[in-house]
């Protein structure tokens, strides 16, 4: 019996060996280009690269379930703020130093570093900015007052058919520019990393930011029901003059024939620029992968190269994480505008404690927008909640 079992095991092992391939999980926008790159890698190395489409929001949960069992993708493409949790679970493999690493923007590498090690190869930075429809807005606003006047004028002119300004007012990510612009912060940045005990979401600046959000609602240019889907579809249909969105969305707007422009989010107050979150997208390696060396080879000696990075940019035009690729694409005004916005931005914390912040702040925004709590109350409560959970 044992012999038979052993024999079967051997047979299975041989089967597994014969299946040498790299599995990559990625979200919609990169599937095409990665498949093409995978084909080329296969032509060179004789190893299949299987690119599987997984919705962006599902990649991390799926990976968290599969990877500990020694299954799941060898490489995942995702956001830098997953790193903290994935490393805590011991699921990511550090990426060794390589010669061209100094060609990558420091902010991108920093975002993917945790405990002094690099856990992801960044390929795109992203930050939100003001996107406007040139049919309604010839010149983008420079100050908040201008923004409010413009939005009101549009609404006066077109009634309920066209919105002057719309953004997901109850989603923390989209409100951050106003909060950080006034001096709020999530976790205090110190030379040795983030201090998760020092939370700046209820300080004077943060409350000012929330009050500005409240003013948008009171002035009638933002309504409590606004969410991402509504914003996205209205702008695509040409029924929104100004929105706040990221570089991932512009391709769809261009495809829909919208004559749009990208500009900085107006200064929140004189001499106070809006500061969005900077997110970084990159490739991460499953530490339990049976093909660790090949996965590293794929990333370091293939994906990280300038030409590959440029091709990824062309397929999915976000701000490139490599300096020399940015040089190549400088004539694209969208990229320049988003890069400037990211330049004002603050990297999204990649510590696991950030997990508490999203829900707490979304709830706080909800209370503010619906007038069920004052900005100060809502902010104080949210911070209390975050502290209660991170203790």
């Amino acid at each position, binding site marked *: *019996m*044992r012999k*038979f*079992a052993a024999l*079967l*095991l051997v047979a*299975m*092992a041989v089967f*597994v*060996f014969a299946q*040498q391939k790299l599995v990559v999980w990625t979200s919609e926008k990169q599937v095409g280009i990665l498949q093409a790159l995978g084909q080329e890698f296969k032509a*060179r*190395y*004789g190893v299949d690269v299987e690119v599987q489409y997984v919705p962006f929001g599902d990649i991390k949960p799926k990976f*968290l379930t599969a990877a*500990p069992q020694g299954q799941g993708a060898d490489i995942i493409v995702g956001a830098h703020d997953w790193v*903290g*949790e994935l490393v*805590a*679970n*011991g*699921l990511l493999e*550090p990426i*060794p*130093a*390589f*010669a061209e690493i100094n060609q990558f923007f420091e902010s991108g590498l920093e975002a993917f570093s945790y*405990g002094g090690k690099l856990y992801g190869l960044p390929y795109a930075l992203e930050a939100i900015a003001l996107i406007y429809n040139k049919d309604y807005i010839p010149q983008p606003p420079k100050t908040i007052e201008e923004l409010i006047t413009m939005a009101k004028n549009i609404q006066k002119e077109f009634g309920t058919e066209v919105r002057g300004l719309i953004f997901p007012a109850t989603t923390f990510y989209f409100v951050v520019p106003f909060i950080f612009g006034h001096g709020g912060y999530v976790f205090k940045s110190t030379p040795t990393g983030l201090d998760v005990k020092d939370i700046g979401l209820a300080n004077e600046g943060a409350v000012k930011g929330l009050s500005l959000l409240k003013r948008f609602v009171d002035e009638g240019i933002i*309504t*409590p*029901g*606004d969410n991402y*889907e*509504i914003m996205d579809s209205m702008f695509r249909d040409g029924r929104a003059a100004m929105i706040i969105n990221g570089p991932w969305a512009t391709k769809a707007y261009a495809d829909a024939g919208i004559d749009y422009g990208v500009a900085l989010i107006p200064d929140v107050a004189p001499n106070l620029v809006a500061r969005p979150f900077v997110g970084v997208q990159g490739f991460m390696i499953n*530490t339990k992968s*049976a*093909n*660790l*060396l*090949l996965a*590293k*080879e794929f990333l*370091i*000696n293939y994906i990280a190269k300038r030409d590959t990075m440029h091709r990824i940019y062309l397929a999915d035009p976000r701000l490139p994480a490599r300096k020399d690729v940015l040089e190549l694409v400088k004539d694209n005004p969208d990229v320049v505008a988003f890069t400037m916005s990211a330049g004002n931005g603050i990297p999204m914390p990649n510590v*696991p404690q950030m*997990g*508490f912040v999203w*829900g*707490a702040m979304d*709830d706080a925004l*909800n209370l503010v927008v*619906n007038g*069920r*709590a004052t900005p100060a*109350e*809502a902010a104080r*409560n949210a911070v209390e*909640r975050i502290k*209660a*959970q991170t203790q």
Partner: protein
Amino acid sequence: MKKLMKLFLWFFLLLLNISFFWMTAFLIQNRYYELGITFAVLIFLIDFFVFNPKGYPYRYIIPALVLLFILVLYPIYFTIKTAFTNYGTGHFMPKEEAIERLLYSTKYTYIVPSNEVVSYRVFMAYDGINPTDDFIILFSIDDQIFISKKPVPVRRKGRDVILSEGILQRIESETFLYEGQRFKIVPWPSLFQEIKLLTTEGKSYKLFYAFDDQLLDINAPYFKTRIAQTHLANTDFIEPFSGKKYALRILPDGSWGFVRIERLYRLAYEEVYEDGRMKLKMILVNNVTNQRVQEKDGVFYDVNDKGEEIFLVGFIDYIGRKNFIRIITDPRVTGPFLSIFGWTFAWAALSVVLSLSVGLPFALVLNDPRLRGRNLYRTLLIIPWAIPAFISALVWRNGLLNETYGLFNKFLLPLFSLDPIRWFNDPFWARVGVLLVNIWLTFPYMMTISLGALQSIPVELYEAATVDGAGKLRRFSRITFPLLMTVIGPLLVSSFAFSFNNFTIIFLITAGGPPIPGSVTPTGYTDILMSYVYKLAFQAGTGQDFGFASAISIMIFLLVGTISLFNFKFSGAFEEVGR
């Protein structure tokens, strides 16, 4: 024919036995002991039922038995077991695996700075013109030449190789003895870079790959994929006299070369005085700092020179009743518990009562033989039930209830010049909203079970009642309703239990919102126990907390179980059926 059938059955049983034994062996080898034992017990029972005449009647429940074991008993066991662990984010692997990783993973090695110049050449035994996986590596370390054959696995886990080793042997002459075989180097004497061939009895190894030889680049893919990844990925090549270790790494310039490495951690034994006796205890020690690795709350920590703890790796640890104690004592859990429990109870009860009060009238009408086109109506009325709940929930949320563009707020309410309702942001209306959706989804079920029950009520009863002069209402309240209840009562209890845990609807419609101001946990007005627990265990924190979630689901099971038991007793449902 009958004999053939019997033969076939025996053969089938044999196959079943073989596969179950194999599965047991495989699972236990891979340390899934519980599941392995489940399979072992299962096959034992199956064989017992088949071979023992006493077990004869049980033969027919074998398929059910298989499902019971694998889909019910094992998950229950697993949930209970998990409830006593800290399984969750940061604690994902068993302790043995965590230790194994610290000791053997390439992640926990470091490159020893040295001036040694290490280069290597791979020699391949060809099969015709095809390379095989029989190879020999020659190393040149500071101008001394070493040989190693294909490394051998020294640590395995299941069928995975965790660590391989190759022993280096120094070569000092043209011919030499290695592993009992006589080898010859061609040409000799020569520079390391000029060696072309290794020959041994009847076999020759040709130069195949060297990272510093442009001409051999053509073989790089085969070397990297078939040789390096498969045989050299986590391999230490050990020089036995100095004990130096060399391993393959991707170097900063992108080439694959060997460097001198050391393991970051080693096992050591420490004498501890415990229970009045000296005991040897296994500990992990950091090779660089010589500090011992600390173990605390299911996590291994390194201690740096400033005395700070640095997280290394967490593991699944048994923590006893801690999860259960947390449910009772943690103010974050207990704080909103009562209000959530109240709403959960109301939600479940109202769901049942209201959907029954919608479904029953429909059933009464449909049951009337005078109604024409009954089948058509019945089909139409069952549609909400037939459409997957996920889809209708999304249609309700985005199409009907949306505060700005939904059907209600945009068309229906303005029609009666009413103010728009804030379906997701007003606590009362949010609750009404989820109830509305749930009634829409469940009334066809109520209608169907009522229809079935109505048809089982004897017509004579009504005739007798009519003769006695009972009106329609009286007939309903004295005959139809009581008789109906005896049949659908137990079903109502189970749909109460189902609604009690109906996480899907709540989560798809409101996700528990709108938030309750002032609470320190992610709590909303429409949160039921299940969704609240889900948020606590999977969303609120730094990730997931399976241990805590298991503990709570056991508590909820006890709660729902108790309520259902009372319900059954109270309604006398079981007695009626049993009589």
